[in-house]
């Protein structure tokens, strides 16, 4: 597949849009359907798509495995960090109201960062699963 010109060109065209769509789903999640889970999966799908067309080795260069593992961890940390921030600002754990003088904006801010954390972890996990399975049995065509 690596040598199929059409696929490679179309992939190059599509992947930026997939990434863009992921960001849209991520940020629009506050107002409409969407959010971190979906965005994370779409983000991961873009990379998986890339791996399918350009090969696993190339994908590993773009998104190396340690990065993927770190993404899983960092996402959880962001989520937990928002909770701790609530604690530090005098509220309960995961209290968003205190994140901003204006409680409504506080809610907004809290949700935003939580969703960032979720997206990071979900895409990390998805990629990790993909890498893990794709690696087995050496099906990668080199």
């Amino acid at each position, binding site marked *: 597949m690596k040598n199929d010109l059409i696929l490679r060109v179309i992939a190059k065209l599509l992947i930026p849009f997939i990434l863009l769509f992921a960001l849209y789903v991520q940020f629009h999640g506050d107002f409409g359907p969407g959010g971190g889970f979906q965005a994370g999966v779409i983000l991961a799908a873009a990379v998986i798509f890339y791996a399918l067309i350009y090969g696993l080795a190339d994908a590993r260069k773009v998104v190396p495995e340690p990065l993927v593992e770190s993404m899983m961890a960092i996402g959880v940390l962001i989520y937990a960090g928002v909770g701790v921030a609530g604690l530090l600002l005098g509220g309960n754990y995961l209290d968003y109201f205190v994140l901003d003088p204006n409680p409504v904006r506080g809610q907004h801010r809290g949700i935003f960062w939580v969703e960032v954390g979720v997206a990071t972890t979900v895409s990390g996990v998805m990629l990790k699963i993909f890498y*893990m*399975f794709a690696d087995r049995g050496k099906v990668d065509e080199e």
Partner: protein
Amino acid sequence: MTGATTSMTLGSHFTYFITIFLMVAGLFIVISRPNLIKKLIGLGIFQTSVYLLYIAPAKLIGGTAPILSNAFTVYSNPLPHVLILTAIVVGVATLALGLALVVRIREAYDTIEEDDILARDSNAEDNGNAT
């Protein structure tokens, strides 16, 4: 919640029948199939039935997505959706872990049939090189 308001008819409760069918079918697959992958598929079906169990009653006929607006007064219950989103994530994690285990089992045993695995282990024990 919702279903309880209408009378007990087959039609009004059809989601429950589907739920129970999926539940029993999934469980049956888990129990009856010796193939480890098929067992996981059964487990997936079994878990899916739970999603339906939660989601179906949350939908109010005529209700909209629970986003405040002056135009609507009837909303579907959002909480089950959130719960099930969590449950789906849990299900995905379980499935991924299960599949990963199956992959490694296949590498270690060269088979994914339950009977074969058990047979191979008991042979190993007989030869005294179990541990």
